[in-house]
């Protein structure tokens, strides 16, 4: 984004995300069961699992939206349970629900989120132009976001999540329901961001997308059943593709919705 430095503000040596025994219970139900992992700066980390496996819950804890019930986790060097507001300054987040305002125009949405993150007006203006140019949305700048096709909306939401140059961006099923061509373009944007040093944490149900990740974890019933590179996972499970890996793991799941 606008030639952002590869050394991001708030970037820390070592892993950008670190979780140890991270747990979330809702009453007697354990949605996330003591997961442990590390994610390095600039990595694209895929988070897979059947519906109800606990992906969103884990992600919301890492974003400081949900207080963990147990374990520890840090993001960009700050503790998830104790310093959620410090984390929020350094991350971008695209929730599973659509997160821009349908009744604001493209430009108004960009301006609003830029302003909320404390960007200067000149900065917002420059970034808006750059962003619209890159997404090919220049002619739609005054269109209501609600009137855009889903694929465009998602690309826009992703760019808005990066507006304040976060160290990590969390994406919860950003490509759900998006056509294959637009999904491809979306991934091009992801690679560009990762190349600039942004850490990408993404959940998806598309197993072809899992192949694009640097490393993939597969959640089953709140536990992390596997974690490796796509090639490593295929080898480990003696599978031809990620689809087969996923099916082998998910077959034993109980919490599926």
């Amino acid at each position: 984004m606008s030639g952002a430095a590869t050394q991001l503000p708030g970037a820390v040596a070592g892993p950008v995300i670190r979780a140890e025994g991270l747990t979330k219970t809702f009453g007697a139900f354990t949605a996330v069961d003591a997961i442990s992992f590390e994610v390095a700066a600039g990595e694209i980390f895929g988070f897979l699992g059947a519906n109800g496996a606990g992906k969103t819950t884990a992600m919301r804890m890492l974003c400081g939206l949900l207080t963990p019930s147990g374990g520890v986790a840090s993001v960009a060097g700050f503790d998830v349970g104790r310093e959620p507001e410090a984390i929020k300054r350094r991350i971008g987040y695209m929730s599973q629900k659509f997160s821009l305002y349908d009744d604001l125009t493209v430009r108004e949405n960009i301006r609003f989120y830029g302003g909320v993150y404390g960007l200067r007006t000149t900065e917002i203006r420059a970034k808006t132009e750059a962003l619209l140019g890159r997404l090919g949305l220049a002619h739609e700048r005054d269109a209501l976001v609600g009137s855009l096709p889903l694929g465009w909306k998602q690309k826009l939401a992703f760019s808005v999540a990066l507006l304040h140059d976060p160290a990590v961006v969390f994406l919860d099923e950003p490509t759900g329901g998006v056509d294959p061509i637009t999904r491809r373009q979306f991934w091009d944007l992801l690679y560009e961001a990762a190349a600039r040093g942004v850490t990408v944490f993404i959940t998806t149900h598309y197993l072809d997308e899992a192949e694009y990740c640097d490393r993939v974890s597969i959640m089953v019933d709140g536990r992390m059943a596997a974690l490796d590179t796509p090639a490593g996972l295929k080898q480990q499970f003696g599978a031809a593709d990620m689809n087969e890996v996923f099916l082998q793991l998910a077959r034993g799941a109980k919490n599926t919705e």
Partner: protein
Amino acid sequence: MRIVWFLLEKEFHQLRRNRTLLLLLLAPVVQLLVLSNAANYEIRNLNLVVVDQDHSPAARRLVDKFQYTPYFRLVAVRPSVRAAEQDLLRDRADVVLVVPRHFERALVRERRADVQLLVNALNSVKAGLAGSYAASIVQAYQGEARPATVAAVLAGRGGLEVVPAYWYNPRLNYKTFMVPGLIFQIMTLIVMFLATLNIVREKEIGTIEQLNVTPIRKWQFMLGKLLPFWLAGFYQLSVGLLVARLVFQVPLVGSLPLLYAATALYLTVPLGIGLLISASSRTQQQALFVAFFFLIIFVLLSGLFTPIEYMPAWAQALDRLNPLAYIIRIARMVLLKGSTARDIAGPLGALLLLALTVNALAVWRYRKTSG
């Protein structure tokens, strides 16, 4: 403050594109016109029974006074109070006027004379009105009686003994009495509903999650949500006062800046309650239900339709927590009586306490990180 500005900008863009704007702009006018007519308690043709024990010209003139108004209709003249009481019991009379023997003589000699009013209290509102109407007629008669027939005798004070009811609304115009209260009732309903629904809607759509993951502060978020509806409240007050003045000819004798200042404080109470409700609700239905619950109590106990003094003790006690009751009292005092800041210090202090409590609770209840 810069972040609050961005929040406000967003809210106004959204409001501009939303149909609720129309509601916000037009409702105060339409509702005021409709409600002030519906809530008109003026009662005409009350049945009047007279017991004239004096048979004097002064007594006859007093009875005539009653008949000249549209409020009373003379249905019978009875020889004794006892006979007239039968009319009350059988519901044939709403008011019995008893002019005692030596009424005229007392008026002239002792500079004072009493009449007796018996009021049928089956319907307490009607009874209160009938009594007040009658009292004001007697009072008006006193004003005329002095110069006309007994001017020479009555050099100083004196005349008829009456209750000085409705000093600040001498012609007993119900619109004068109701409109200031209605302005605030309508304002409260609209502003509180819209503020509550606005936030819960962001919850339902999911955009609030996106805001909660930004470094925005709680107070900034709340201020951003409060201010647009706070301003809407001022718009409603201004429109309401214009309608009151131009359509209903309500005399606005008091200080408008004082009323606006009181309103500035008042609005933070229903808005704070709206924030509190929306922070605790998941869906718009839930929020609407709770908001409705509070608003019904506020309105019924506001003193607008039933005078607070007529309410049972528990209701009067509950009214200490009713912001609407305070502001309606303030509005009537300032607009109709010209009360000063010192006069309304009591209710203002109560509003300040309510505002602080409610908004502190709202800030405490609103969570950017859930458990």
